[in-house]
């Protein structure tokens, strides 16, 4: 599957009278890795849900295009077929084993992977020893690895991660980061488009080529790798400044 390009113009998302996104523009190139940073309630998850095709913008336009056949805009169904998504929660079924969770996730995409194919995914995420264990017996770190394995088992070309490091200790976070870096291609040699929502500028710099700093539903800055502003320290300072300005404004 070719990677996906994501473009939005004037994207606004409202929940009743509350505006989560206020007419933002963005263009995420096919195969690009982007981190979305911002404080709680900034609109990061709302943006990710629009990118996943889980939610429609209240106004503005959002389109996803296949990099291979860029003339055609992908419909929401076609987009969903290409998305691997990890949300705040793991999206797993506690009563199912690790292997069964993966088989079910692939089944939802109309696939019936062989046992060997599932073994390969389990091994990639260091879950081969617990393949037959129920997911509700997993530690937070193991569950998060399985959640990401579930998101990639059908070979998506667009990987969307909503705060995947939440609740992990430093060592588990480092291991997960290494595994996510290895997921930047889809296993068939094509680059995946990766969008990761995180609070942690260190993770953003490690995983992404560009950062979108979201504040109160607006994109306030978009530094790219190589810019002075694309370091963990600079991103942290920028986020603190945004939060400080918000407090002053309030």
């Amino acid at each position, binding site marked *: 599957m070719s990677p996906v390009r994501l473009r939005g113009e004037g994207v606004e998302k409202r929940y009743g009278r509350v505006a989560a996104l206020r007419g933002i523009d963005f263009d995420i190139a096919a195969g690009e890795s982007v981190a979305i940073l911002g404080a709680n309630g900034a609109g990061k998850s709302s943006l990710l849900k629009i990118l*996943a095709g*889980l939610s429609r913008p209240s106004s503005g336009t959002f389109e996803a295009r296949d990099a291979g056949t860029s003339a055609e805009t992908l419909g929401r169904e076609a987009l969903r*077929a290409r998305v691997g998504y990890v*949300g705040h*929660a793991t*999206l*797993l079924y506690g*009563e199912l084993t690790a292997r069964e969770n993966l088989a079910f996730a692939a089944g939802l995409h*109309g696939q019936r992977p062989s046992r060997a194919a599932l073994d390969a995914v389990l091994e990639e995420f260091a879950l081969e020893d617990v393949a037959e264990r129920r997911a509700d017996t997993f530690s937070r770190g193991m569950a998060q690895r399985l959640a990401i394995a579930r998101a990639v088992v059908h070979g998506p070309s667009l990987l969307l991660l909503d705060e995947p490091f939440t609740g992990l200790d430093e060592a588990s976070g480092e291991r997960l980061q290494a595994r996510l870096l290895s997921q930047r291609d889809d296993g068939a040699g094509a680059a995946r488009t990766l969008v990761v929502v995180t609070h942690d500028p260190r993770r953003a710099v490690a995983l992404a080529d560009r950062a979108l700093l979201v504040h109160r539903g607006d994109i306030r800055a978009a530094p790219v790798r190589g810019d002075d502003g694309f370091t963990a320290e600079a991103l942290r300072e920028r986020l603190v400044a945004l939060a400080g300005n918000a407090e002053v404004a309030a």
Partner: protein
Amino acid sequence: MNVALSLLWKDLVTEWRSRDRIVAMTVFSFLIVIVFQFAFPEMEQEELARLAPGLLWVTYVFAAVIGLGRTFATELENEAMTALALAPGTRGWIFLGKATATWLLITLVQVLTGLVFALFFRVDLSVGLGGSLAIVAFANVAICSIGTLLSAMSVRSRFREVLLPVLLIPTLIPVLAAAVRGTASSLAGESVGLGLLQPLIVIGGIYLVLSFLLFDYVLDE
């Protein structure tokens, strides 16, 4: 179709391991039968024949409401509903997998409840057994179709425990009327022909097709 089969497999496996829906529905049904036993003690056989189909279907519907209430509640744990919403293709297949699993569970509970009801009220269920089973099967198509749709619609609401029965029971009135009439005929030893099954087949068919088509809009935020 693969999606529907995956959902059916997943729902049956998780239910087998947790048994939360089947136990809740069965215990609740048995309790209602016991309550009816106390409410209508020493009933004459003629009066029993008149009331039994209604009592049985009231029990069935209340148990179904419990089961349907849990159909999508299990998907809220770990936000698994999001994974369902991300499945490509027609979401009607998700509905079909869910509704089929619920149909199997509810039918099993109804068979067990029927046996307990027969024991408590001394009703001979072997009279017109085939007809009664056909009525249960077709009525359950309607109950599970519209119930699965409404369960998915109400599951994210804060008032889901109240909302589901309030929405569901009015839509089941024509189903109940036809099912009670058919069960009464069946228990009276009359043959259950197409005339008695037809309303259930038509209503079930309408609810099934409508729910399949409308389910596409239910999973969106």
